[in-house]
């Protein structure tokens, strides 16, 4: 075993150049100090904007060689100081995968994409051919060698980018949030590919919010908070310090979090990290005692009909077909309704037609056939500007709507467009700044804020118009669980206040936790419409739509033979049900003794 560490972060402190000349530098990283051994799998955790990407970029020298700013300490890659090695030369040792596939696919043919780095390294032609074949096979794209990268699915694009760095045969793979734009099935495929790659001596260092996804690699975790290293250790240590980490917004695997809470409620569960571990542990916990009478569980309380303060218009989609100009038949006869004040999730694989359907609700797209009615308006003869009063649409990528020179101006844009008086506009801006905790950055250009804050600005800038119907496209992608929870709490509050809320998402745990109704789309059609609970019990629909039930739903289902209510798929209800069942059996046990 080689003793030179793969990566050594040696007391790194770093500040980006200040946004405005004369401003003070604020270090994003402060004294980061840890190593990753060769062959190790390390996962970097931390809230959105905490400096994870910045730290990753030191391993290829981009920080500070390309970004400038104030850098102290050393990032050492296999014994070489990354600051003084040219970026393209470090690439031989470190394969770096960026979050967005779009910025790293430069070619118009899949095999050319993989060959690019090898050409740059001046390898002989036959060697390039050999490695291209090998790399494409490793990621399962051998069949696609002659296709256009632009025509691949999101998951395939990410795997192609991986093949392109893999072909250089780097000893270290550094991945920045590789799953954030993938649907559940594509995430699993990527994990399988990576697990296969890591059977050798290769080192993995990845930053992610998807700790449930990453824990399966059995990695060492490193957590950052406020620019400092908060924690390093294996998953078991993650459990011991669960409370401290959660308080800092460090994500834990869902089952770990639940096990921790069960313990605090006096239930002797061992620490668990993966779904499989949880199932084994909890099954034996519940089955170890003699069966008492199974307690009855009240059905999940239906949300009270909200006070009709806003009167959102009902939405009727009637047999809608839609074909894009390039001939893609994106919607094939969709009939769908959303009643005033409902909260509904629109789910499905990438390119299933979710966003296309949502864009019909505010007139950005008009049906090729069929019709869409918002209240008593037909979208075919109503302008988008008019529909915008009723239907607010928050786009997936906040950068698509950010343009103003200050956050304040950005938020004022929509109310002004809708012709509100300056006084009202001012009030709305203050309200939103307060609601989203943006007062401190109110006079900054939104474009330079961190990802989490940009998303808040985007949401605030739509909400400022007080649209009674709110569409949110993947609102929590890339956000850490704590920020996601904060955001969803606000969305739920809006729903309680009477807004109709339509969420487009891939995140089944979010659906289980927050949403009473879910509509599944596949190939431009509605495949299922009902309660999440019902959906998770139908494996053929899930399979057809490339969805996976969240861990809790699978666990609740698997524990059902022991008397567990299969519909307890929200965290609180799951805990409650577990405790009730456990205690009832304990009483039966004690009674018998």
């Amino acid at each position: 075993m080689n003793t030179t560490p793969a990566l050594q972060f040696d007391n790194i402190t770093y500040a980006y150049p200040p946004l405005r000349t004369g401003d003070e530098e604020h270090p994003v990283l402060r004294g980061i100090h840890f190593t990753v051994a060769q062959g190790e799998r390390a996962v970097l955790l931390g809230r959105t904007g905490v400096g994870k990407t910045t730290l990753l970029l030191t391993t290829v020298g981009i920080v500070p060689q390309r970004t400038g700013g104030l850098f102290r300490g050393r990032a050492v890659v296999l014994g070489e100081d990354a600051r003084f090695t040219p970026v393209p030369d470090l690439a031989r040792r470190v394969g770096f995968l960026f979050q967005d596939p779009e910025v790293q696919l430069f070619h118009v043919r899949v095999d050319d994409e993989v060959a690019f780095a090898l050409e740059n390294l001046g390898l002989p032609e036959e060697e390039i051919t050999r490695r291209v074949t090998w790399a494409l096979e490793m990621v399962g794209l051998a069949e696609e060698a002659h296709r256009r990268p632009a025509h691949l699915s999101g998951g395939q694009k990410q795997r192609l980018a991986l093949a392109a760095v893999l072909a250089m045969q780097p000893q270290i793979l550094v991945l920045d949030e590789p799953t954030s734009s993938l649907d559940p099935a594509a995430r699993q495929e990527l994990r399988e590919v990576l697990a296969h790659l890591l059977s050798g001596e290769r080192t993995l260092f990845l930053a992610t919010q998807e700790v449930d996804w990453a824990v399966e690699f059995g990695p060492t975790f490193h957590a950052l908070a406020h620019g400092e290293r908060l924690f390093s250790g294996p998953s078991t240590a993650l459990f011991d310090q669960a409370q401290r980490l959660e308080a800092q917004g460090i994500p834990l695997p869902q089952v770990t979090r639940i096990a921790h809470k069960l313990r605090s409620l006096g239930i002797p569960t061992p620490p668990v990290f993966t779904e499989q571990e949880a199932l084994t542990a909890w099954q034996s916990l519940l089955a170890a005692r003699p069966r008492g009478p199974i307690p009855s569980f009240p059905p999940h309380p239906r949300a009270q009909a909200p006070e009709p303060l806003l009167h959102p218009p009902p939405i009727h989609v009637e047999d809608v077909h839609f074909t894009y100009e390039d001939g893609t038949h994106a919607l094939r006869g969709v009939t769908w309704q959303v009643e005033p004040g409902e909260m509904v999730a629109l789910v499905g694989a990438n390119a299933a037609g979710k966003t296309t359907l949502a864009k019909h609700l505010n007139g950005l797209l008009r049906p090729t056939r069929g019709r869409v009615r918002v209240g008593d308006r037909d979208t075919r003869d109503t302008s988008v500007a008019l529909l915008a009063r009723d239907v607010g649409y928050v786009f997936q990528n906040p950068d698509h709507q950010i343009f103003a020179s200050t956050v304040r101006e950005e938020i004022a844009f929509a109310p002004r467009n809708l012709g509100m008086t300056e006084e009202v506009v001012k009030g709305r801006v203050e309200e939103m700044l307060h609601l989203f905790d943006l007062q401190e950055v109110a006079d900054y250009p939104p474009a330079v804020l961190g990802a989490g804050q940009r998303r808040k600005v985007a949401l605030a800038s739509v909400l400022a118009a007080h649209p009674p119907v709110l569409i949110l496209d993947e609102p929590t992608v890339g956000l850490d669980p704590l920020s996601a929870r904060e955001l969803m709490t606000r969305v739920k509050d809006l729903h309680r206040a009477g807004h109709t809320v339509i969420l487009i998402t891939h995140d089944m745990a979010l659906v289980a936790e927050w949403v009473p109704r879910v509509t599944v789309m596949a190939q431009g059609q509605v495949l299922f419409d009902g309660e999440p609970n019902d959906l998770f019990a139908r494996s053929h629909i899930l399979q057809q739509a490339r969805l996976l039930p969240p861990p809790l739903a699978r666990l609740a289902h698997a524990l059902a033979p022991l008397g567990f209510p299969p519909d307890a798929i929200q965290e609180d209800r799951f805990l409650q049900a577990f405790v009730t069942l456990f205690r009832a059996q304990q009483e039966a046990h004690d009674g018998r003794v």
Partner: protein
Amino acid sequence: MVEFDLYVPGRSWLHRLDPRVKLLIPLGVSLLLFLHFTPLVVASVVVGLHLVLWRAGVPWRRLAWVWWMMLPLFIMVPLAWFLFQPVGRVFWSWGIFRLSWGGLWHGFWVVMRLLALALAAFLWLFTTDPALFVRTFVGLKMPYMLALTVALALRYLPTIAGLYIQVHDAQRARGLDLDQGPIWQRLRVRIPILIAVIIGTLRLAQYLGWALETRALGATLPPGHRRTVWRPLRLRREDKVVLGILVIVIMIILGW
């Protein structure tokens, strides 16, 4: 999705011809049209190019699209010649206006010549896989960085156009009304869209630059080694034959 893909996949002789040799076709056509500008030559070239493109499997809709693009010129140019550029007998004149039927006729053939040039250029674009662009440029001894820059610009055009559409949609969804008021106002309300597109493009460019470097672009190579061109263009026997024919044709055009 936006696509600026002009390529029509196929396996005709034109598709298989070395793109460097194929470049001689638009070159030869241009020389012919400028050195021998007569209605007969122009008409023959237009008809001939249509036949060649049709045989290569280019659908008629693509050809109609080329005509459609030229349509404004077909109206404006002959009209301008008719009104202002007398050819032959002037039958009515007043101030700058000097009307002649000869001007109309001449103007028509000027546009036909442009159409022929456009068809010749599109012949190359319709039948050449974009994957071969960089190889073509490098094969013509263009420096690699320049070739890559051109290829990247083409590659990212659809991305930036897609960005424009997204931003456009996002701003309209916030009540931005683009179709109200006089023209200057309509242009002015598009400023937020342009700003967001520019910010997005700069962000894209920054990451793109980093990503290129992490793929070893500009890596230090051992002395005597150069960047490899994987599967470079190589002249086959058929290519050499066509090359010979085209060179002879061009010499005839030049020496005629």
